[in-house]
C-alpha cells in the first residue's frame, strides 16, 4: 500500500496541507532528508518518519550514496501552476551569507519581481506586496523579511517544505489575491539531539531539535545579526562611501515548537515565532539614532492537530494567532514624523481530506477574527497632532468555506473548487465621517461583503515530458496594507475592508506549456497570464495629506487595474552544473478616475523585463560555487518636469502619473561552499559570499535636490543608495 501511494505522489501534486497524504509526503521528505544529508557528507542521519502504520522510528545508516540519475518530472505532472520546493531542493538552493533561503529564492523563479533595492516584497504577476498569503505552519505571517529583504524571517534550518502558487491556487487558500507561499517545518521526531547553525560576519543562527521521547520532540532556533556594529564599520574603514555605510540595520528572530504523536494516528504540532527588526536610514534620520529609527516585529504562534482516520480519510484542525507591530520614526524635511500600528489575526481552520485512485477531495472551513488597531500618524509639521484613523479599532470576522476535488481522467487532471467568503466589519465603531458621528455597538454588523470564488485548473499530459496547464480563478482580499514608503520599510498603513473601503478582488487567467528534455535533466516552461483587479488602493495626494486631515479613508482612492505577461524558464535540474534562467516580460496598469485625468497609467511595480540567472557548479565533493545575477527594469515613478517659485515656495510641476522609470536594477552575487572534514561528529562547511560583487549602486530612492552655492543653484534629480558590496564568511555546522 505504501508503495502504491508513493507512486501516486509522483503523479499527483505532492504538496498538500496536513492530511492523510501529507503524512506519506512527510515520510517521503524524511527519506529525502536522509539522502540529501548523506550526500552532504553527513555520515549519520537519523530519520523518524510518521508513517501511517505507526512504524517506529528508524535509524538509517548510509555510508555513501551518489544522488544522480533521473530527475522526477513533477513540474510536468503536478496539479497546479505552482512551485514545490522540498527539503532536498532547499539544500540545493544557492547559499548566500551562509543561508539557503527558500523564500528569497522565490524572487528568482519566474513570475515574481523584486521591487528593487532595499525592497523585500514579492510582486507576483503585477500584484502588490500585500497580496501574498504567507503561511508558516498554517499561520499567516505579515512581514516575512529582515534587513530590507536580505534575509527572510524563516530560519532555513527549520524549513522542511515550501509550496508556492502564483496561479491555479487551490480553493483551500484564500484571502489574498496574488500568490500563496506555504512553508512548513519538518515536524520530524529525531532519535537524538540535532544541532544546526551558522556563524558569520553578518549573522549567526543556531537551531536545535531535542527528542523527549519517541512521541515528542521540541525544537528551537535563534538568529541575530550584527551588521551595524561589525560589517558596516569595516566597509567604512576600507573606503566604501559613507552614504552606503552610515545606515544601520539589524534583526533577531526566535523560533520554537514541538511535534508530538498523541495517539496512534493523531499528531499535535505547536509553532512559535517572534522576530524584530531595527533600521535607521541616514538620509531620513537626525544624528540622534534613538529618535529616528524604525522597528517592527512579528509574533506568531499556533497549534495544529492532525488525525488520520484510514487510508482514505484524514482531517486537520488548527488555531493560531499572528501579530505585527510597527513603530517607524523618521525625519523628513526637518520634520519628525512617525507611523505606528499594530494588528492581529486569530484563525481557526478545519480541513477534511478524502483520497482514492482518481480523486483527492478536500473541504473545510476557516474563521478568522481581525483586530486592526488605529494607525497612529504624527508629524510635527502638522502642529504636533497625533491623528488616528477614525480612532477606532477595526474589528472584522471572515468566515470562509471551500470544497475542491482534484480528479484524474486519463491524461487530464482537474482541480475544481469553490470558496465562499463572508466578511463582516463589526462594532464597536464610531463613524467619524458621518455628521452625527454614528456609533455601532459591540459585535454589531456594520458592513458585510459576501463573495464567491470559483477556482478551475486543468492539466493535460501530452506525454511524460510535456504538459499543458490552464487555470481560471477568482480571489478576494479583505485586509489591505497600503504602502506609505517607496522603500522597503514595512511601514504600511493598515486598511481593512470596512464601511468605507470595499475589498479588493481579482480574476486571473493563466496558461502554460511545460516541457522536459533529456530524461528530465532540462525543464522548460512558458506561461502567460492576464489579471484584472478591482478596488485597488492609492493614496490621494500622498500620505502627507493624511498627516493633516487624520482620516485615512478620506485619503484613499479606489481604482481598477490589469496586468498581463509571459514567463520563460529554463532549468537544468541535475549535474555538475545546474541552475536556471528565468525571464519575465510583463505589463501592469492601473486606472483611477481621480488620477492621471482618469487615463490608465503604469503601476509602480510595472516591470517590462525581469531576468534571473542562477548557476550552481559542483567542483568536487568539497567545493561548490554559486552565482546569482538579476536584472530588472526600474520601478515606475513620478518625476516633475519643471519647477517654479510661488509665495516663496518652490513648486514642482509633474508629468503624467508614473510616467518616469528608474534605471534598471542589477546585481551579481557569488558564493563558494567548502566542506570541512568531520571533527568529533560535527559536520561543517565554510560559505564565502559576496553580495553585490561589482558594488553596483542600485538606487532605492530618486529625489530632487540642489547643488551649487548660493549664487548658482541647480535643481536636479538625485539618487540614494543602501546596500553596497557585502562580503561574508559563515561557518555552517550540523551535529
Amino acid at each position, binding site marked *: 500500500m505504501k508503495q502504491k501511494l508513493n507512486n501516486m505522489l509522483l503523479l499527483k501534486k505532492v504538496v498538500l496541507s496536513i492530511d492523510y497524504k501529507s503524512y506519506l509526503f512527510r515520510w517521503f521528505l524524511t527519506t529525502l532528508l536522509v539522502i540529501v544529508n548523506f550526500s552532504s557528507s553527513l555520515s549519520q542521519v537519523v530519520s523518524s518518519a510518521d508513517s501511517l502504520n505507526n512504524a517506529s522510528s528508524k535509524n538509517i545508516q548510509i555510508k555513501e550514496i551518489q544522488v544522480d540519475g533521473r530527475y522526477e518530472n513533477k513540474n510536468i505532472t503536478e496539479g497546479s501552476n505552482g512551485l514545490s520546493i522540498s527539503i532536498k531542493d532547499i539544500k540545493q538552493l544557492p547559499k548566500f551569507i551562509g543561508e539557503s533561503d527558500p523564500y528569497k529564492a522565490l524572487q528568482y523563479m519566474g513570475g515574481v519581481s523584486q521591487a528593487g533595492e532595499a525592497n523585500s516584497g514579492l510582486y507576483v504577476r503585477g500584484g502588490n506586496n500585500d497580496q501574498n498569503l504567507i503561511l508558516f505552519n498554517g499561520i499567516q505571517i505579515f512581514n516575512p523579511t529582515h534587513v530590507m529583504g536580505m534575509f527572510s524571517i524563516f530560519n532555513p534550518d527549520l524549513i522542511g517544505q515550501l509550496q508556492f502558487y502564483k496561479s491555479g491556487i487551490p480553493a483551500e487558500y484564500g484571502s489574498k489575491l496574488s500568490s500563496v507561499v506555504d512553508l512548513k517545518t519538518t515536524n520530524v521526531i529525531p532519535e537524538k539531539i540535532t544541532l544546526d547553525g551558522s556563524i558569520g560576519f553578518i549573522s549567526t543562527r543556531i537551531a536545535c531539535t531535542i527528542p523527549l521521547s519517541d512521541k515528542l520532540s521540541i525544537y528551537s532556533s535563534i538568529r541575530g545579526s550584527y551588521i551595524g556594529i561589525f560589517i558596516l564599520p569595516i566597509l567604512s574603514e576600507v573606503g566604501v562611501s559613507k552614504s552606503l555605510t552610515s545606515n544601520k540595520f539589524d534583526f533577531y528572530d526566535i523560533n520554537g515548537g514541538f511535534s508530538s504523536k498523541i495517539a496512534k494516528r493523531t499528531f499535535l504540532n505547536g509553532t512559535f515565532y517572534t522576530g524584530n527588526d531595527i533600521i535607521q536610514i541616514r538620509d531620513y534620520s537626525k544624528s540622534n539614532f534613538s529618535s529616528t529609527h524604525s522597528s517592527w516585529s512579528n509574533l506568531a504562534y499556533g497549534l495544529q492537530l492532525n488525525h488520520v482516520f484510514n487510508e482514505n480519510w484524514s482531517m486537520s484542525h488548527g488555531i493560531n494567532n499572528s501579530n505585527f507591530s510597527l513603530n517607524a520614526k523618521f525625519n523628513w524635511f526637518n520634520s519628525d514624523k512617525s507611523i505606528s500600528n499594530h494588528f492581529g489575526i486569530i484563525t481557526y481552520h478545519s480541513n477534511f481530506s478524502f483520497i482514492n485512485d482518481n480523486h483527492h477531495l478536500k473541504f473545510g472551513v476557516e474563521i478568522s477574527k481581525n483586530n486592526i488597531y488605529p494607525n497612529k500618524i504624527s508629524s510635527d509639521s502638522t502642529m504636533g497632532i497625533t491623528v488616528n484613523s477614525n480612532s477606532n479599532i477595526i474589528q472584522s470576522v471572515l468566515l470562509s468555506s471551500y470544497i475542491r476535488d482534484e480528479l484524474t481522467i486519463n491524461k487530464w487532471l482537474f482541480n475544481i473548487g469553490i470558496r465562499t467568503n463572508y466578511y463582516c466589519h463589526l462594532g464597536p465603531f464610531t463613524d467619524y465621517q458621518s455628521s452625527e458621528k454614528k456609533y455601532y455597538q459591540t459585535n454589531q454588523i456594520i458592513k458585510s461583503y459576501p463573495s464567491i470564488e470559483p477556482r478551475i485548473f486543468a492539466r493535460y499530459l501530452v506525454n511524460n515530458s510535456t504538459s499543458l496547464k490552464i487555470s481560471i480563478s477568482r480571489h478576494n482580499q479583505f485586509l489591505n496594507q497600503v504602502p506609505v514608503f517607496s522603500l522597503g520599510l514595512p511601514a504600511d498603513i493598515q486598511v481593512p475592508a470596512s464601511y468605507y473601503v470595499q475589498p479588493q478582488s481579482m480574476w486571473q487567467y493563466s496558461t502554460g506549456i511545460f516541457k522536459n528534455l533529456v530524461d528530465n535533466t532540462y525543464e522548460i516552461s512558458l506561461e502567460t497570464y492576464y489579471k484584472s483587479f478591482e478596488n485597488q488602493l492609492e493614496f490621494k495626494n500622498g500620505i502627507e495629506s493624511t498627516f493633516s*486631515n487624520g482620516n485615512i479613508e478620506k485619503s484613499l482612492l479606489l481604482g481598477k487595474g490589469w496586468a498581463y505577461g509571459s514567463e520563460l524558464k529554463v532549468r537544468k535540474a541535475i549535474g555538475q552544473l545546474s541552475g536556471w534562467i528565468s525571464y519575465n516580460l510583463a505589463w501592469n496598469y492601473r486606472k483611477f478616475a481621480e488620477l492621471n485625468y482618469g487615463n490608465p497609467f503604469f503601476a509602480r511595480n510595472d516591470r517590462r523585463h525581469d531576468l534571473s540567472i542562477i548557476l550552481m557548479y559542483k567542483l568536487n565533493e568539497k567545493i561548490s560555487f554559486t552565482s546569482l545575477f538579476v536584472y530588472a527594469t526600474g520601478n515606475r515613478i513620478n518625476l516633475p*518636469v519643471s519647477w517654479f517659485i510661488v509665495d*516663496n515656495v518652490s513648486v514642482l510641476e509633474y508629468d503624467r502619473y508614473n510616467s518616469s522609470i528608474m534605471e534598471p536594477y542589477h546585481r551579481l552575487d557569488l558564493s563558494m561552499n567548502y566542506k570541512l572534514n568531520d571533527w568529533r561528529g560535527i559536520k561543517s562547511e565554510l560559505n564565502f559570499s559576496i553580495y553585490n560583487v561589482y558594488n553596483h549602486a542600485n538606487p532605492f530612492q530618486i529625489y530632487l535636490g*540642489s547643488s551649487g552655492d548660493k549664487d548658482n543653484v541647480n535643481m536636479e534629480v538625485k539618487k540614494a543608495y543602501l546596500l553596497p558590496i557585502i562580503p561574508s564568511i559563515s561557518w555552517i555546522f550540523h551535529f
Partner: protein
Amino acid sequence: MKINRLILLSCILINSCQSEFNYDLKGYTQKIIVEGYISTNDYAKVYLSLNIPLSQKFDSLQMIKNFISVAKVSISDGVNTEILTGGYVDKKHYPPFYYATTDLKGKEGSTYNLTIEYAGYTLRSTTTIPYSDSVNYFTSTAINDSMRSLKMNINVNSINKGSYKVYTQKSIDNKYYPTPFLFNPNLTQSGPVEYVINPKPAENAKSFKQSNLFKKDDEVKIQVNKIDSIATAFFRGISIGSNNGLGSDIFIGQKDALISNISSPGFGIWYGRATKTYSVKIK
C-alpha cells in the same frame, strides 16, 4: 542672495551620493508663472516669471532670464482699470521684481480682473476678496520658563468659505514668516475654531532658534489673511507639493494636478486676501 538661500532651504537636501540622472524632458512646456494678490486696503502686486526645466542649470544669470519685467499688466474692478507699474523690487521675494497698482486698493467683497500681455500671449484671471472673519482671542501656553506656544481662536464663517494664511513677525525679525500650513485647508470647519500658530522661520531668520515657539513678553504681529476656496486649493496643492517636494519621495502617493486660475499658457494664482493684523503680547 537670500533668495538663493531660500531656494536651498525650500529644497532641503538629504545628503547622499549622487550622480547625473539621465532625465528625459519630454513633458516640459514653458509657462508664465503668475503670483498676484490684492489685499484689503492695499495695492495689488503681481510677480511674473517662467517655469524652469528640471535639468536646466539655474545660476544667477539664468535666474534673471526667468524674470518677466516687460509685460503689460492691468487690473479692473469692473468700473476702473489700472495698468500696473513695473520695476518694483522686493528682495525678500522670488521673483524680486513685481508690478503694482498705485491707485486701486482692495475691498472686501469686490471682484478684480487681471490681464497680462506678454510675448504675444494674453493671460486672464478673476478673483474676489472674501469677507474677513474675526479672531476671538489669542492664548499662550507655557512650554518652559521663557517660551510659549500660541493659539488663535477664530470664528470660521461656514457660508463664506475660506481658509487662512497666517504670518507671524516676532520683535527680533524684520519681516513676516509664514506658518507652513493653511488653517481650515479642507474648508470643513465652522464656528469658533482654535488653531495652533506654528511659525517656521527660515534658517537665516533671527528668530530661527525660537522655532515654532514664542518668547515670553515678546510683542508679536500676527497677520491673518482669509482667502477664497480657489486660492485655498492652489496653496494647499503647492504646500503638499513643496513639503513632499519630490518626484519619488519616500512617501507613495499621487500628487493632485495643481489648480490654477490663470488662463493658458499661464499658471499660478491671482487671489484676494482679506487681511487683518493683530499685535499680541506673549504672556
